[in-house]
């Protein structure tokens, strides 16, 4: 079954890898039927949202360099409306977690995520962000950012090629497209932290 409403102009439906996952997701979303007016309105809004995603400028290590390449001339992500990288999490829609997240950085990343306005999305870029990657055996590395924040799209590679970034972004756009804007999925509960504003928060 092809889900008609999640066509991405730049890429054929068959060329995506995990269509089944998305189809299941769509079936689940539409289980109870959608009001036609609200449904259409949501589609229009999502069309706009998925074509102007604003990422947060965030990179901790090597994958960040490939992120810069994606932003530069050759594989320009401005073609897909992703070029407005924001320096403040409060204005960003998606955070690309490019690079290793270590123990000391984990609370900072979590804080950044919490500061983003909903609906917010997370892309885990590179093996480090997915599972710790080459540093899995280290004493100071978080074994995957999904331990601290929920992740929408995983892009494997060490570092992923710019093309892989773009593919991940297209997947992200598809995911945004199928959601019902008026009934966005519940944000999962994050692990609790008590005292706010105690430290390192350069950018709020």
């Amino acid at each position: 079954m092809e889900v008609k409403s999640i066509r991405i102009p730049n890429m054929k439906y068959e060329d995506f890898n995990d269509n089944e996952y998305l189809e299941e997701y769509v079936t689940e979303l539409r289980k109870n039927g959608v009001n036609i007016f609200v449904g259409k309105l949501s589609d229009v809004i999502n069309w706009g949202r998925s074509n102007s995603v604003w990422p947060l400028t965030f990179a901790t290590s090597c994958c960040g360099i490939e992120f810069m390449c994606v932003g530069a001339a050759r594989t320009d992500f401005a073609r897909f409306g992703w070029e407005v990288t924001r320096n403040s999490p409060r204005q960003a829609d998606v955070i690309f977690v490019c690079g290793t997240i270590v123990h000391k950085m984990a609370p900072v990343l979590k804080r950044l995520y919490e500061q983003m306005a909903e609906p917010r999305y997370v892309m885990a870029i590179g093996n480090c962000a997915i599972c710790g990657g080459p540093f899995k055996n280290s004493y100071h590395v978080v074994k995957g950012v999904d331990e601290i924040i929920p992740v929408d799209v995983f892009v494997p590679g060490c570092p992923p090629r710019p093309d892989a970034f773009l593919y991940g972004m297209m997947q992200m756009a598809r995911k945004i497209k199928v959601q019902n804007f008026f009934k966005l999925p519940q944000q999962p509960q994050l692990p609790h932290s008590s005292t706010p504003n105690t430290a390192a928060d350069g950018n709020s």
Partner: protein
Amino acid sequence: METVKKELQSLGFTDVKQADNRLTVTVPQDKLYGVARYLRRERPEQPFDFLIDLVGMDFGDALGAIYHLSPSQNPSLVVTLEARADSREQPELFSVCDLWDVAQVYEREAYDFFGIRFINHPDMRRIFLRSDWNGFPLRKDYNADPALNPVPLENEHIPDMERMPSITLKMGERVEEVRQAFDKDEYVVNFGPQHPAMHGVLHLRVSLDGEVVKKVDPVFGYIHRGIEKMCESYTYPQILHLTDRLDYLSGTMNRHAVCLCCENALALEVPERAHYLRTIFDELTRIASHLLGWGCMCMDMGSITAFVYGMRDREKIMDIFEETAGGRLMASYSVIGGVPCDVHPNFQKRIKEFIPYMRKMLKEHHLLFTNNPIARGRMKDVGYLSQEKAISLGATGPSSRASGWHNDLRKIAPYAAYGKVNFDEVLRTEGLTFDRYVIRLDEIEQSLRIIEQLVDNIPEGAHAAKTKAIIRLPEGEFFQRVENARGQFGVHISSKGDKTPYRVKFRSPSLVLVGALKAIATEAKVADLIMLGASLDYVIPCIDR
């Protein structure tokens, strides 16, 4: 060399070991400071004013440190001091941070990893790990149970970050004190760890008076990945992959350093062809790194176009890498014994196309940005780094050559094919931001010259020497440096004859550059801080390792 040896012997150290250009002596805990002071201050000529590296060590029965020293006028000569602390429960050594500024960070690092406390060091905080971390991870008896150190959910508390414990000896009496990094009435601004212009996750705590920077207190460790500890459980070929990811912009050179270190230890004959190919790859990496550094520095001054131009030129190099080695950013093009595969048939053609292209673009970069009066105005007269300061801080690479210190290892101690080519070591004298900016573009030109001379003369033959399936280094301490895009990258391998090393320490050229930032940012305007940082071009994962 001989004179140094004699001097050391006259100081009472009869057992001076010699290997290549390196002398090693073991000094007892109480004599350490005396020898260090002699070498640094009291020698009649060529003082050892460059502390290359300080390696914390767990010798098994004792904890201690290894100091690699060198005279700045003759950086190929190295004296290594090995000191052990008497007690393992309360390991203490005398600090040498009044002799070399750079010892401040190195000693903090040794404390962080091994728990060795340095007497008379003003600031014995942890450097990479949080102050609430349990244990000293690089000790051999470290308990790595993740339950002891779970992933924290809260940021470190600022007051904990500011407490600076110290031990001093005042008239023979031991005084333990805790001081604060900042006074109560200082106006402190946090800059980073997540800041778009920080080039990574460094956290600077800046004390301001109006818009003048009074003090900079860097907080490291937001990308401390524990590479040195991991190396201890990996075989030598596995380690190579981690070195690529240290300073990913000079990955090829870092890898080269480890390969050279192992090859020297094994006395392995590497084919000429591999030397040539490695040199070409090193220089291409250097160009790519300088282009990115240049682009980022211009971007920090507001010129995004320059960044896009730099990245565009860099893509050409990435293509060459990809064709031959398969990787873009991580070319991984060196293995112990040579290079892993021969070059792609297009390799030479592509390089010959690239050289004139890059020359043309360099002219354009100079025309568009270097000669831009606004850019010149911003870079003129700020960020002065004197040569003495650069040496004392251990800052190497282009940043210190802009202050006139001749320290390019490619010239001083040529390795690979550098001895066979003609090129100039670019030196400038003023030590200002503009010099550090321009020197990178000039180095690109020199790198092109090197590649040009090599590309047509790559000797035929095997591309790698045969190695055993399992590589075991002989017992001993091995130290090797190469010149990477940021300065001298060193690797110290201590082997007990196993297939995994006993201890690996990397000398990060970036770590010391943050010390240089501290020096040049003081009394500068806060608006220039970002540009000063960019002019030093440090890579943060290399700092934190």
